[in-house]
């Protein structure tokens, strides 16, 4: 068991038993898949850094580093392929994608496997801090636990100042659930957080933004570049996109709006007329609609075609030429019915609707009473304006989940 802090400043002795310098850094090769392994060490003389290859190292221990040759070093230039453990990793902030936390690297844990030294983990414990302060001999330190994070759970934070500009683009973060990524981002500074959001795929970024605490969200949004934000909004359900726009400052809103596609901009402009926690403010324009005279097969096709852009496909809303809501048909009915039948023959004609001004509590009551997943919002003429889905109402009922 070896810690990086124990290697730093250790004497380097060459094969003639001559003192060379003190160790300044350890260089590892990182392919992003396996544990990185040590390829050499670095020392400093004057202003220059020198590199000694691992094959020239006889022993690597906390007492000293001995070499099997002399004059076996070369000037070290910046090298994108390698990580310098002290300079690039030590003391930086990282994501622990296993326990979903933002932590600071207090020490690095190296293990000799075969002939190679591998970087297997990161120590984030307070014990490591005390070790580096030279206070390991304090009596209570013995009872403290080290806290190691496996290297495979480590994800660098994008855009962090320092030299890790993602030479090794780890994609571990993308595999997490959006809600978990959101939690991680909430623990960063805004600067880092906005960098992380912008480094994700637009689709993922949209999902993540939807999960971020409202209080943090408005300041975070201001930090995201308008062009990127517009792209992310394109991927978002319209109701959420409208909320995001509403959270922006007037200045930023205009900038983002200019960059939206015409279609999205039109829908969002319409939705933005309604405010706050009433059905009008909660509703989305992303719902499946079908004409009553179409067949079941048409409806199923429509679902297949549109399912990518509409998250909510469990009900198809039956709407005539003049936008008047005629009925609702569930995906279950569509699957179980004869595909040559017309929609008008299988749809439920009991219309349960709300107005744009209905409060979210009343929407919730309605959804609960009739066991619905969504409810249509209609105007006085019975024309459909949008739908409110249960998850949007839940968010208001249980705000801090």
């Amino acid at each position, binding site marked *: 068991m070896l810690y990086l802090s124990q290697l730093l400043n250790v004497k380097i002795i060459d094969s003639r038993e001559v003192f060379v310098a003190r160790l300044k850094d350890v260089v590892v090769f990182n392919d992003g898949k396996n544990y990185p392994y040590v390829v050499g060490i670095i020392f400093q003389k004057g202003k220059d850094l020198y590199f000694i290859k691992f094959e020239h190292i006889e022993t690597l221990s906390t007492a000293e580093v001995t070499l099997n040759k002399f004059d076996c070093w070369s000037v070290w230039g910046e090298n994108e392929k390698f990580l310098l453990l002290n300079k690039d990793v030590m003391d930086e902030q990282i994501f622990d994608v296993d326990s979903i936390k933002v932590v600071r690297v207090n020490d690095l844990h190296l293990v000799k496997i075969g002939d190679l030294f591998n970087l297997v983990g990161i120590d*984030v414990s307070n014990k490591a*801090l005390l070790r*580096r302060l030279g206070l390991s001999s304090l009596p209570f330190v013995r009872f403290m636990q080290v806290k190691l994070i496996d290297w495979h759970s480590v994800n660098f934070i994008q855009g962090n100042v320092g030299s890790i500009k993602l030479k090794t683009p780890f994609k571990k973060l993308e595999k997490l659930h959006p809600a978990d990524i959101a939690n991680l981002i909430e*623990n960063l*500074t805004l600067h880092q957080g906005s960098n992380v959001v912008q480094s994700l795929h637009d689709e993922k970024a949209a999902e993540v933004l939807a999960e971020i*605490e409202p209080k943090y969200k408005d300041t975070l949004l201001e930090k995201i570049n308008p062009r990127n934000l517009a792209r992310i909004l394109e991927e978002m359900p319209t109701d959420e996109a409208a909320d995001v726009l509403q959270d922006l400052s007037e200045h930023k809103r205009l900038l983002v709006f*200019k960059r939206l596609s015409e279609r999205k901009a039109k829908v969002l402009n319409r939705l933005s007329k309604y405010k706050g926690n009433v059905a009008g403010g909660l509703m989305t324009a992303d719902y499946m609609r079908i004409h009553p005279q179409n067949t079941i097969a048409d409806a199923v096709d429509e679902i297949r075609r549109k399912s990518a852009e509409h998250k909510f496909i469990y009900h198809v809303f039956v709407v005539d030429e003049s936008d008047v809501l005629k009925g609702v048909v569930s995906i279950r009915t569509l699957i179980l019915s004869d595909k040559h039948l017309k929609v008008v023959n299988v749809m439920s004609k009991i219309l349960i609707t709300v107005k744009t001004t209905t409060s979210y509590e009343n929407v919730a009551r309605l959804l609960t009473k009739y066991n619905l997943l969504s409810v249509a919002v209609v105007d006085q003429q019975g024309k459909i304006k949008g739908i409110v889905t249960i998850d949007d109402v839940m968010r208001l009922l249980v705000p801090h989940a």
Partner: protein
Amino acid sequence: MKEISGKKPSTWMGLKLKILLILSVVGPGIITGTADNDAGGITTYSVAGASFGYKMLWILFLVTFILAITQEMGARLGLVTGKGLAALIRENFSIKITSFVVLITFLANLANILAEYAGISSVADIYGVPRWIAVPLASLSIWFVVYKGSFKVVQKVFLTSSFLFLSYVFAGIMSKPDWQMAFNDMLVPSFVWTGEYFYTAVALIGTTITAWGQFFVQSYFVDKGISSEHLKYSRWDVFMGAFWTNFVAFFIIVATAATLYKSGIKIDDAAQAATALAPFAGVLAKHLFAWGLLNASLLGLAVVSMTSAYVMTEAFGWEGRVDLKSESASYYGIFAFCIFSMALIILIPGLPLIPILVGSQMLNTFVLPILFICILKLLNNGKLMGDKKNSLFMNVISWLSVIFLVGMSLLLVIMTLLNR
């Protein structure tokens, strides 16, 4: 929500946008500047005016520029790197320097918090409110605002508090000072060759430019979430903050100079100043002074405690943010510890407050040089700052300010030690 239009903004719209932008950026500078006028600051200004009349105003004038420079450095570091000062020191210097700076600042802050409570207690004394009611009430309300409020709410409370400092401006005007003499003494240096004069002068600088103030201004700019493109506006914000801070200080000094100094009345703290002011400037002036002190102490209490929590969590990787509770238990833990433990200590009868405050100033003196050297090194780090790094001109000005600051505080330490 207003109708959104995709149309290109007209010139008028452009102007409107610009104003909106400035308004959205203004705040941190005013708040962080004003927070330097805490209970210790108000006391120093009151004593300076009562003991030396207008003769200390030129130092205040000088300090305004130094404050503007140091605050700008902190704001720029925060805006460009998006990180707090403790984190930057940890990442760019050694863990030992980090621990030293952070722990000393933490200790000095605890003493500072005691001073804020002392301010609150003395206002309570003026109005005959028992301390054991006033102190817990103050700590609970500050805890409540910071713990329950979002960043925006906290900022609004702070901004309101910053403008309440106007009470001192009114008190200053009511004391009918000799304006001509005041302005003259502000622009023309004058010395009194006594140890006390020098001591007060250094204290005046020391209460305005502090280690915690430097940490606070940077963290605040990081959390405010202004992008570095708006640096220009933030710079003005900071300068306005420095101006407002010492504008208020000017009126405090003027108020006590025009009344207490003229009549040869000596005071030891700001609350005494309030009481002593009544016969000269009227009862209203007394109330303005007392309420001003209460306001300053409360703001200082919140800001210094928050900074302690920021600095500790950031340096040791127990990160947390102002607006998140569940995730940042250590942040709120440290915040609560600072606020409540010091509230208990101030209630100890016969607490020797003066030695504690002197000790705190000494600690500040040890940290400031290291802190400013780190800040200047960071500001000159091209990898970190890009094109926002220090220019030669800025370097000269900032090094001069730092050398001046460090020299003055070192002299203070020597003088204090010699006095004992």
